[in-house]
């Protein structure tokens, strides 16, 4: 029994070996602590982030987009509930099976769903990814039935933008679309992949005000994705509502008047620049753009010969034709020419060995400035074109805001062209020919403007010469007005306004078709030639795309003008036939609106 006691044989040797072994263990322990140092200290921040992502699940609370109203509080753009299908990666066991199931549910190829999923998943979050919107109730029900089998598939109620007036307000309001990669790169803080943002019009320009700020509910979850507690909750900040200056009645009238036509109508308050109506035809239905635009619709819009996406009121430029005689008349009087001086019209004039035609081939006879405006006599203005040089004409054209954008809150506005000799050299590389001044005097030739600029011009004529920045959104801020050089005398403007009254209200005026009893409208017709004079016979005999453009620029009531209406009809024919009646319809709606608002008020005009 005692044989193993007190046996000290090679004891020191054994102790040394054991000590060495222990030393090895201690060394290993130190190496291991280095391993912990690496993971905890060197890479600690990385793992801390992973841990936070592990346990926090962020659910975005969609901020309702602000509604858009007309000036009387009628909704133009609103939100309606919409069912969307989402996939929650955290709950998905087999994504391929998920896509296959969703594909049968939606009738969309699985590859397409995968593509959408890949495009919209964002960063490290675990938020469900929406792969389809506008579900019908049958699909919603079917998705609900399969909830047990596919817990990763969810139905979410989102908001869908509805433009109740559809194509009637399309160019103003614009539409929403999925945020592009370029937008994301530009403003990574503002947008998430898959967000709908304003792509055009008011929706685009005022996107930041309308969209508000999405809220988030951050939940602590366990490894099974089960809710443990709420970690953070910031409610969504709803988007601001916008009230437009637009009067829906006027807007709808304008849109209806342009139905089946190509053109634009602008109605504007000459004192504060508020746009009461702005219609462009042809138009499109912006509701088709919300969510996912099908490629055929998009293609059809792009290939449409009349380009319905274009807002003709401010994105297209046209020769002003005879409406430009307003600027010519102001320039003539301000330059000291006598408005009572007469010119004899025999139906054409020959200047610089070139024959220029008047609208009336039989001739107007002897006319002063007022008569020339009333009858829109070209011969009279050919004379003015001979006497006023192009630089002076251009100066007055710019004085009325032509050649530069108006500053309306819409994108892609065109500035138009005010030609002069410098422009000719820079843009065309040729000198200005005096004969061109004769054309410009009647609003033909290279001079170009937008219907919106035309409305601004009319507003300046009415309000004492101020250029007003037009605006779509109602605000309490004062109107932006400027009074550029050269100063215009009130008497000059009054004289031209009176001539415009005669255009509509005197017998044989070109604007007679705009006349309304008991409401004095003043205006100027314009007929822009599309084909060369030599081939022109009459609008009825020409092919539709070769007919003249029709203008009518007007204001009313004459005594105390409240409204400017500009009508432009592309290839419509003459201004007096194709445009003036449309302006009259606009004023009728305006009057109906006035009477409706204030039935007790005394009758306007006289």
């Amino acid at each position, binding site marked *: 029994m005692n044989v*193993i006691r007190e046996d000290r*044989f090679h004891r020191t040797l054994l102790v040394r*070996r*054991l000590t060495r072994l222990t030393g090895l263990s201690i060394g290993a322990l130190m190496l291991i*602590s280095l391993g912990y140092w690496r993971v905890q200290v060197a890479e600690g921040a990385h793992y801390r982030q992973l*841990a936070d992502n*592990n346990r926090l699940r962020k659910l975005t609370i969609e901020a309702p987009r602000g509604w858009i109203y007309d000036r009387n509080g009628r909704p133009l753009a609103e939100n309606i509930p919409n069912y969307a299908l989402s996939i929650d990666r955290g709950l998905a066991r087999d994504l391929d099976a998920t896509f296959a199931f969703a594909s049968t549910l939606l009738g969309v190829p699985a590859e397409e769903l995968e593509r959408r999923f890949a495009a919209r998943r964002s960063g490290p979050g675990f938020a469900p990814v929406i792969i389809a919107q506008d579900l019908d109730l049958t699909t919603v029900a079917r998705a609900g039935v399969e909830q047990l089998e596919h817990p990763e598939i969810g139905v979410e109620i989102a908001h869908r933008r509805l433009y109740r007036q559809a194509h009637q307000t399309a160019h103003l309001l614009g539409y929403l679309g999925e945020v592009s990669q370029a937008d994301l790169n530009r403003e990574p803080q503002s947008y998430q992949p898959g967000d709908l943002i304003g792509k055009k019009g008011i929706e685009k320009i005022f996107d930041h005000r309308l969209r508000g700020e999405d809220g988030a509910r951050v939940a*602590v979850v366990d490894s099974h994705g089960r809710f443990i507690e709420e970690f953070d909750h910031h409610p969504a900040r709803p988007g601001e509502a916008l009230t437009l200056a637009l009067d829906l009645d006027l807007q709808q009238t304008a849109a209806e008047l342009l139905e089946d036509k190509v053109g634009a109508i602008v109605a504007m308050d000459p004192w504060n620049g508020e746009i009461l109506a702005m219609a462009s035809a042809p138009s499109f239905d912006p509701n088709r753009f919300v969510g996912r635009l099908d490629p055929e619709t998009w293609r059809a819009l792009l290939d449409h010969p009349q380009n319905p996406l274009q807002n003709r009121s401010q994105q297209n430029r046209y020769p002003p034709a005879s409406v430009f005689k307003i600027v010519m008349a102001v320039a003539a009087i301000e330059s000291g020419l006598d408005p009572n001086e007469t010119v004899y019209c025999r139906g054409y004039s020959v200047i610089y060995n070139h024959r220029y035609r008047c609208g009336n081939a039989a001739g107007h006879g002897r006319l002063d400035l007022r008569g020339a405006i009333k009858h829109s006599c070209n011969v009279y203005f050919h004379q003015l074109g001979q006497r006023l040089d192009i630089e002076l004409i251009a100066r007055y054209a710019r004085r009325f805001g032509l050649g530069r954008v108006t500053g309306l809150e819409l994108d892609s506005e065109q500035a138009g062209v005010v030609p002069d000799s410098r422009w000719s050299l820079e843009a065309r590389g040729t000198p200005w020919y005096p004969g061109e001044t004769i054309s410009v005097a009647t609003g033909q030739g290279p001079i170009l403007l937008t219907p919106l600029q035309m409305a601004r011009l009319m507003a300046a004529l009415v309000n004492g010469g101020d250029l007003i920045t037009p605006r779509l959104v109602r605000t309490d801020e004062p109107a932006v007005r400027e009074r550029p050089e050269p100063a215009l005398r009130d008497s000059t403007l009054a004289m031209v306004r009176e001539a415009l009254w005669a255009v509509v209200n005197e017998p044989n005026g070109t604007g007679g078709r705009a006349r309304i009893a008991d409401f004095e409208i003043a205006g100027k017709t314009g007929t822009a030639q599309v084909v060369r004079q030599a081939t022109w016979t009459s609008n009825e005999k020409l092919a539709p795309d070769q007919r003249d453009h029709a203008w009518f620029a007007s204001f009313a009531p004459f005594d105390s003008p409240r409204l400017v209406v500009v009508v432009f009809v592309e290839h419509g024919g003459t201004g007096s036939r194709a445009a003036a009646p449309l302006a009259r319809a606009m004023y009728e709606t305006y009057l109906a609106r006035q009477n409706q608002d204030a039935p007790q008020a005394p009758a306007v005009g006289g």
Partner: protein
Amino acid sequence: MRRLGNIHWGPLLAALALAVIGLATVSSASSETGTDYLPRQALWIGVGLIALLIVVAIDYHALLDLAPIFYAGSIALLVAVLLIAREIGGARSWFGIGSLGGQPSEIAKLATILMLARYLTRVRRPHLDFGHLVVAGIITAIPVGLVVLQNDLGSAAMFGPMVAAMLLVGGLRLKHILIGLLVVSIFAVGYWATGARSHQVQRIVSFLKPDKDPLGAGYQVRQSKIAVGSGQWVGRGYGQGTQSQLRFLPARHTDFVVAVLAEEWGFLGVLGVLGLYGVFLTSTAQVAARSRDRAGILLLAGLLGLFSFHVLYNTAMVVGLLPMTGIPLPFLSYGGSFMLVNFLITGLVLNVDYRRYVNR
């Protein structure tokens, strides 16, 4: 007890400190599981301390005298386990003793240490001969074979470092070391090529590429590293570890308890715990250095091998330095019989120290 003051308190203090830290960590790790493991863990610490006192009271020479009986008894237990034990978790090692449970393979390790110490003490040479190795190999192979038959390869592997430590201290020749390594590698390769169970292959693969399949086999490695790493310098605070509290971390109160500690106490906490293990190991080595005979040194060698391998493997595995396997961490991991074994080890260390003077 005049000489009690001369006892080396290092192992006992380190053990008690670690047990208390383990108690707190297990409690934190299990606070979300519905079962609070703290009372049971505390109970086992109490049982362990009583066992420690009993072990200290009996002269280790007497224990070595009784080694063949312990050895035979533990082998009988292992056989009994094989015959009657229930299937639990794919390994038949849990022996149903009341509600507390017990693991005969743990007992078998200690019995094997005693048996080998007893045998090697009698070898009065600076180095072991081939014949001695054969005998030692047979002593080891019987319990190891029985444990392997239970499908508990983790426990069987634990015999390796423990026996290796004793043989190294007893005096291994270089050629025998090389032959041993060769044999082990041949067995390992053969096992890999033929009989490898898929879950073991998975563990190796997931160790080599933990991010390949973060929700599959690599899940534990990844979650464990996230837990450890997120602790950074000072940790999230006690009970604040999100990995642990939110159940991302598997086996967090048993094999991965140090991950919980790392998450909640940070690198400094880990250093503290590793330091305590260092204290345990070095003070045990000091006890060996002043022990009075071969028997004591060889006994301590086996205990150190068993203990330190658990510490090193477990802490390295948790931080992703070694493939995962079910090796608990002494004093910290929850588990009754394992806690008991660690206190028995501590008791044996103190036992050797207490009897370093002749005439006791």
